[in-house]
């Protein structure tokens, strides 16, 4: 009761044995090691099952699959951390590819302008999703579900429901430089690093984590959550647009059906990486591991000759098992 009471000796002792700094990467080291082990285990398993798996061709295939998935997964990581979800990324990817193809083929735009149009298309779609869910306080699940349909329809409209062959105008993006590593792959790699730094080292990243943990607390601490939410969705749209460019560079075509169902693959990669669907917890680096696991699983199952139905059953089981393991790990560390 007495405000001038001196601190008890026990309190002073507790304060003097003050905690020391722990670098953030060290607290995450266990997670990284665990995911790397899972990945190594999968590579080992598939190499043992199929003599063809351990080959340059397989790794080129995997390296080609990765960029589009990784780029979208980076955006989705931020979306899940603010406790949102974006189901429209696959459709946005197709629309972005479609508009750039239309710009090159029908309107005769130069390639850089068409590429910029693809990115702007993605940015606009993402901004619409974010702005609608913020303005009317709607769950992003519903808004992005609507966008999934509307944007897919737009992609059909732009392509006239036919695959548009772009040719090799932008294929340099996907062409391998050294041993399967393409420009697209390098872009995805840089994005992962930059996005992780933004998440853990910037004021914006801090706001993202805070909003996902407790939005009201952030508001009372003087942070307006609305622009942060819109920016996260806008950037995710932009990245889906970039994925669209990567995809049409690789296939030399814009397919209106491209990326159909890919939103679930993206969410699966992020969740396997340990990002929580409840918001507030996640990391871009672990998402990258999730992308690798999905890509290796896909290529490996194809190599061992698994049928399409069994491929999907196994993929489903892996996703659920990964999340169970992560949940158990989290419970252990928080108690």
């Amino acid at each position, binding site marked *: *009761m*007495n*405000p*001038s*009471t001196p*601190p*008890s000796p026990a*309190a*002073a002792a*507790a*304060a003097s044995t*003050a*905690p*020391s*700094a*722990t670098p953030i990467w060290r*607290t995450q080291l266990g997670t990284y090691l665990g995911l790397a082990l899972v990945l190594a285990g999968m590579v080992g398993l598939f190499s043992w099952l199929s003599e063809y798996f351990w080959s340059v061709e397989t790794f080129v295939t995997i390296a080609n699959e990765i960029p589009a998935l990784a780029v979208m997964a980076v955006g989705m990581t931020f979306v899940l951390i603010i406790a949102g979800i974006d189901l429209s990324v696959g459709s946005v990817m197709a629309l972005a590819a479609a508009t750039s193809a239309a710009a090159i083929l029908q309107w005769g735009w130069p390639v850089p302008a068409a590429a910029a149009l693809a990115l702007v298309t993605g940015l606009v779609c993402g901004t619409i999703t974010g702005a609608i869910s913020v303005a009317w306080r709607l769950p992003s699940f519903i808004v992005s579900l609507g966008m999934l349909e509307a944007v897919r329809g737009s992609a059909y409209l732009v392509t006239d429901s036919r695959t548009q062959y772009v040719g090799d105008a932008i294929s340099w993006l996907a062409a391998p430089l050294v041993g399967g590593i393409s420009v697209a792959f390098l872009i995805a790699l840089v994005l992962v690093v930059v996005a992780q730094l933004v998440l853990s*080292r*910037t*004021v*914006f*990243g*801090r706001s993202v*984590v*805070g909003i996902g*943990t*407790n939005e*009201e*607390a*952030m*508001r*009372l*601490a*003087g*942070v*307006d959550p609305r622009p942060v939410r819109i920016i996260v969705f806008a950037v995710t749209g932009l990245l889906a647009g970039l994925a669209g460019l990567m995809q049409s560079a690789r296939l030399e075509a814009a397919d209106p059906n491209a990326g159909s169902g890919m939103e679930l693959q993206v969410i699966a990669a992020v969740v396997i990486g340990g990002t929580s669907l409840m918001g*507030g*917890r996640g990391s871009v680096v672990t998402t990258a591991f999730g992308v690798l696991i999905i890509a290796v699983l896909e290529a490996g199952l194809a190599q061992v000759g698994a049928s399409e139905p069994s491929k999907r059953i196994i993929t489903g089981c892996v996703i659920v098992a990964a999340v169970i393991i992560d949940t158990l790990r989290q419970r252990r560390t*928080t108690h």
Partner: protein
Amino acid sequence: MPHTPSPTPATPLLHVDAVGKDYHGTTVLHDVTLALNAGEVLALTGENGAGKSTLSKIICGLTPATRGGMRLAGAAFMPESRQDAERQGVRMVMQELGLVPTLTVAENLLLGRMPSTAGWVRRAELHAAARAQLAKIGLESIDPATPVSRLGIGQQQMVEIARNLQDDTRILVLDEPTAMLTPRETNYLFEQIARLTARGVAIVYVSHRLEELRRIADRVAVLRDGRLVDACPMAGLSEDDLVRRMVGRSVNDLEHRPRRAAGAVVMQVNGIGRASAVQDVSLELRAGEVFGIAGLVGSGRTELLRLLYGADRADRGSVSLPVDDFKPKQAAALDAPAHTAIKSIAKGVYKTFAKGFHSPLQAMAAGVGLVSEDRKSQGLLLAQPIRINATLSDLSAVSRGGWLQGAREHGLVQSFIRTLRIRCTSGEQPVGQLSGGNQQKVVFARWLHRPVRVLLLDEPTRGVDVGARAEIYGELDRMAAEGRALLMVSSDLRELMAMADRIGVMSAGRLVAIFERGEWTEQSLLAAAFSDAAGRPAPAQPVSPVAA
């Protein structure tokens, strides 16, 4: 269940034996021993936070006791859950309604035991049973097919009571049952209580409405700070006697210390209000003073602080703050809204915000901070480390160009941990793992490095143990000495009397009195807080299908 014969007066119906309860290391109930006889109304009373609700929740199986035991009609009674207690005839009507708004009155009344055939509800039987249940409490006028969401709040409360008036009820705990009832509904309730006690049911009536206790209670048990002060017959006890028992104890030395020197006015509140929750409150805060706000829960204290911080938007009145000594950046932020005006109050230039601030961001730019009442849901990111929580409200100090500077943030957090003596393993420990007192210190840390001139504090020591309280008081003292104005809401009158230079009392949304240090007594503060009880306007009844 088989009906046990009424126990003789020698063996009370319920015997509470040395029951105690700890929450996160804080003792909220100290070994209470109490007997409840069949057919009596025992009033359970005390100030906010005295332990009334905790004791009744233990009796009804909503929360387990940490220590002690209970006996029901002579047999050991330790309910594991509310269902378990109800099976043994011990029921509780909660302050928060437990009704499902989308279901009908009948469905709510018979929830969990609806008459059915192979899963299909027998509607006629359901409605007949519901009507019989409603008739017990004089609510024949309510159609059992009405969805609960269409009833007024008072009628909902009555339905909740009706749900618990079942034939096997042996003990009925009513927690502030009349808080939302009209006088007519209250009379029905009291008639029903009389009928129940005549049948041998024991009633535990939790309330701090003294005039009601006098009407209904046979005996009264007074709790204070989680301890049973007295349990005695109601007859012959005056309201003064009761208040003295509720307040009790000797006067603290601190209550006699001189008033702090108050400086210039740093915030002037003019008739601010929002609907009926806060009604035209005016006050002046001066630099270096602690202004206490007393009042019952629901008197508009929390709502007032939220208006002053822009967390909720006021619909009338204004707030004025001095602008003379503002840093350019803050002044620029103040210039943004078009509805502000600069005017002179005494000496110095003041800026007026019509209807208060429109967002917490604007309040912070003007030098106003809030330590919110519910730190778990509004103040803290429980899953995040101390480091993130402590610097949340001003990252500009630890960042450059939007990039956080890890070393500087770490250093700042370490200095918070040292100066506030936060007990933790490291700055990376999630705040959810800290004790209540240490969590509160983390919230304080946020306002230590900001140019805050007015700090609004809502129950700053709630859930904080005695040792940590002293440290928080020391911190508040230091902040006031630095020239900040503190506006502090507390349910603990002794805390306010020890800390505050002035105390304003709120009742039913109004600031009904302001006492200067030395003018107040606990009795005068309590009397002001209860002042609405007599002249309380009937609560607004929403349109209901059965409005008489």
